[in-house]
């Protein structure tokens, strides 16, 4: 049974979120199919930390990678793992934060055998925060939401394109800082007739250190804006919109709510919705 040297792989610096390039790991990059390669592409290892250093090659024969490309600026709709198909995240390139785009369709598995002889590219580093976002984005794909179809229909025009009211709100400076949206719907298990309304309690979550800089008044104002936007749709009755930090929210609250992936229903084709400028 072929084995690898775990200590060598560790010493090379391999872990989830490490970036490799044609310069640092030519053998690995050669294994990546051409359709995932671009002149300025870099590759992020997204295999779990324990698996990537596993000495047993037959147990963990592959490294999973994501192809990422630099972009001129981030789009609020794709940051913080908000979109299940496309992610805008920051990688520090020689210490300078640079925005990159990854797509679920640009990922794959390559043979792990040569990982011992290759190393991540030290010029590229994911910050802890970027790594957390990346992990959340990867896992979000397998967490499905369960809102009634009627609710999805009612909200679809609010998120239909980049000029739709909710997308605009989440594309503001404060909106971009909101990393998760949770909704409690009443009723949560049935399609209501047109004359009845869903009651909503909405939770907008922010990282605490960012939220402290924003301040409570601005957070409350943002919550009011979201409430007003939802209220404008007949059939939606937002009772409360809370803009809280991760420290404020409790697990007991989260398990009573459903994460809302804004794009899930309406953005069938992201590329037609928002043009992303590549540098």
């Amino acid at each position: 049974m072929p084995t690898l040297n775990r200590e060598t792989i560790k010493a090379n610096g391999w872990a989830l979120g490490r970036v490799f390039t044609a310069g640092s790991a030519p053998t690995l990059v050669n294994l990546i199919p051409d359709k995932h390669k671009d002149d300025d592409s870099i590759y992020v290892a997204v295999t779990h930390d324990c698996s990537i250093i596993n000495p047993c090659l037959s147990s963990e024969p592959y490294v999973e990678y994501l192809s990422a490309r630099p972009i001129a600026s981030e789009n609020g709709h794709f940051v913080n793992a908000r979109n299940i198909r496309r992610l805008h995240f920051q990688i520090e390139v020689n210490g300078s934060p640079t925005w990159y785009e990854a797509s679920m369709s640009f990922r794959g598995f390559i043979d792990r055998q040569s990982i011992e002889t290759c190393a991540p590219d030290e010029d590229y580093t994911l910050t802890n925060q970027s790594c957390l976002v990346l992990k959340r984005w990867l896992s979000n794909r397998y967490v499905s939401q369960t809102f009634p179809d009627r609710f999805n229909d009612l909200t679809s025009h609010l998120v239909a394109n980049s000029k739709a009211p909710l997308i605009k709100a989440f594309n503001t400076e404060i909106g971009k800082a909101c990393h998760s949206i949770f909704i409690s719907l009443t009723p949560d298990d049935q399609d209501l007739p047109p004359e009845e309304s869903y009651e909503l309690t909405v939770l907008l979550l922010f990282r605490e250190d960012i939220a402290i800089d924003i301040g409570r008044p601005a957070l409350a104002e943002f919550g009011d804006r979201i409430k007003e936007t939802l209220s404008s749709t007949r059939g939606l009755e937002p009772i409360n919109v809370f803009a809280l930090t991760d420290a404020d929210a409790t697990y007991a609250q989260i398990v009573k709510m459903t994460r809302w992936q804004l794009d899930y229903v309406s953005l069938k084709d992201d590329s037609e919705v928002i043009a992303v400028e590549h540098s």
Partner: protein
Amino acid sequence: MISNSLKQTPSMQKKLMVAAFATPFALAAGTGGFIHAQPVESTGNSMFVVGSPKPTKEEIDKARFVNTLNVLKSEFGLSKIQMAKLMQVSRQSIHSWLEGAFDSVKEVNQKRLNMIVVSLLEIIDEPLRPSMGALLSRRLDRNVSDFEVVISQESLSSDELQSVLRNFNFKLAGIAKSNELTSALSNKNPLI
């Protein structure tokens, strides 16, 4: 030792004055003394007179100390354990102090308590104060642990104390909002 004196705002002065004003009356009631209104002939008004036995200075200091300690309990919602941490004494000491079961108060304890209460009254917004106990129970919160480090020093600095309290209003407002969310979800069952 206490390194700095604090500037007292009007609202803090009012709080401490209330505690000081109420002290002789509380003492009179607690020691079998009496209070009655005595007319002042020239004005037609009345004034309160505290009957014998007249409280000593030590008794007044003691009662004032208990009243100030009670501000931590009632206004800031702190538990006895949390108060003990702030005062750097045992929980049993706090219990005895609150019960008035002690002879006299050490000056160092008086000064420490005053500095803590004055700092809290100055920095923490009034409507947010009852959640202070809940905030201090967040053991993983970095600001709370910074606060605990500062408060654990024998030599308490008001500047340091005020510095570590700077984000507390933000956090306390979050606890209040979070409580509102909990109420809003009270009729909901967990989905997972």
